């Protein structure tokens, strides 16, 4: 599915980064968002950041996902 969830970049190492999804950390590729950097917020789909976000927009989306009971760090879907 085409759901992407926001996360915060903890630390960038080259094209990959540790990204925090409200407590769950996953390795995410930043190859599609070359300007994203540590501390920034990104929208992540299937292990790839597809867009940068502002913190306020990221938090709004998180609030919705939490209300809807969607686990933001879930993956493994198209």
């Amino acid at each position, binding site marked *: 599915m085409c759901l992407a969830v926001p996360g915060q970049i903890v630390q960038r190492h080259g094209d990959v980064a540790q990204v925090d999804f409200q407590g769950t950390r996953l390795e995410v590729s930043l190859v599609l968002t070359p300007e994203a950097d540590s501390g920034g917020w990104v929208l992540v789909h299937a292990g790839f950041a*597809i867009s940068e976000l502002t913190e306020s927009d990221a938090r709004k989306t998180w609030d*919705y996902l939490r209300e809807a009971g969607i686990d933001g760090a879930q993956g493994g879907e*198209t």
Partner: protein
Amino acid sequence: MTSSSLEPIRTELAQCCARIDREVTIMEVCGTHTMSIFRNGIRTLLPPNLRLISGPGCPVCVTAQRHIDAAIDIAALPGVIVATYGDMVRVPGRRGSLESRRANGADVRVVYSIHDALKLAAGEHERTIVFLGVGFETTAPATAAAIREAYARRIDNFCVLPAHKWVVPAMLALLETRDVPIDGFLCPGHVSVIIGAQAYQPIVERHHRPCVVAGFEPGQILQGLLSLVAQFERGGSAVDNVYEAAVKDEGNPTALMLLDEVFEVSSAVWRGMGVIPQSGMEIRPKYAHFDALKRFEITLDVDEDPAGCLCGQVIQGKVMPQECRLFGEDCTPLRPIGPCMVSSEGTCAAWFKYGRPGTRRASKPPT
């Protein structure tokens, strides 16, 4: 956004629809929208003359049976590991499913990201990892990135079964067949992150149907519907974007360049819709080594959809799930017959899970 904060948009939507003297049909193209509409009870908030129909926006559902069958056949080959996103595993093919192949000893692994499949290949020299490249523009750039990386690092035991698709040509095809009346499109949020809001311009120019990009929260969906209906009321048709937090007019240029580097635009077969020109992504000759169809010399079968299954019509909005004779009785999420019941975002699965009483087919009378 709480339900009370939705009230002003809902009121405006009701007032706008009250000024229109006929039914307005909006197609939500994305499976994630479909699920959000059900989960949040959006239909119960809509005026009676505003009708929502689901479109070809569930990646697994639109994948032609020939690709499903090819994936299942590849899983049976010796020395192969099939890596896939989870929602492909239970889709029934002509010869079982990936799940049943796995029960019979095939190595089928669910991965979170194609990157995991590439890592698997880099550490596993004896076997070939075949990744099932299913999904729209949101997912395809990740596949392109992995193929480019495999090429650069010479990870030769990795390849992809290519079945990625472009959404806009399918939307155009739906309008061109004129089988389903569509007055406007609620456009997919995360596909649009990649392709950009301006990608819907051909729909507006050629068919004069408004297209509005929206996110997945209830407020976004209602805002998108309001923009569509307001355009319809004044006879306008333009592209609007209410999801500016993530979607730009031009999309994600890095992702689009990567797609262009690895894939060339081709025709593609869609379930129930046949061949749609310019809707496919074929791996370019430079990267042909990573094309599973070429590597295993696979000729795709003709499509033989499950008997009685109407998924091909459901994804075009031609029939509602409960009009299918199999729905809810022979075909359920536990024992799915067609892909729209398998995928968590399939229209049939959504209607089965959230459909209001009275919308399911009545049980067969006792004999």
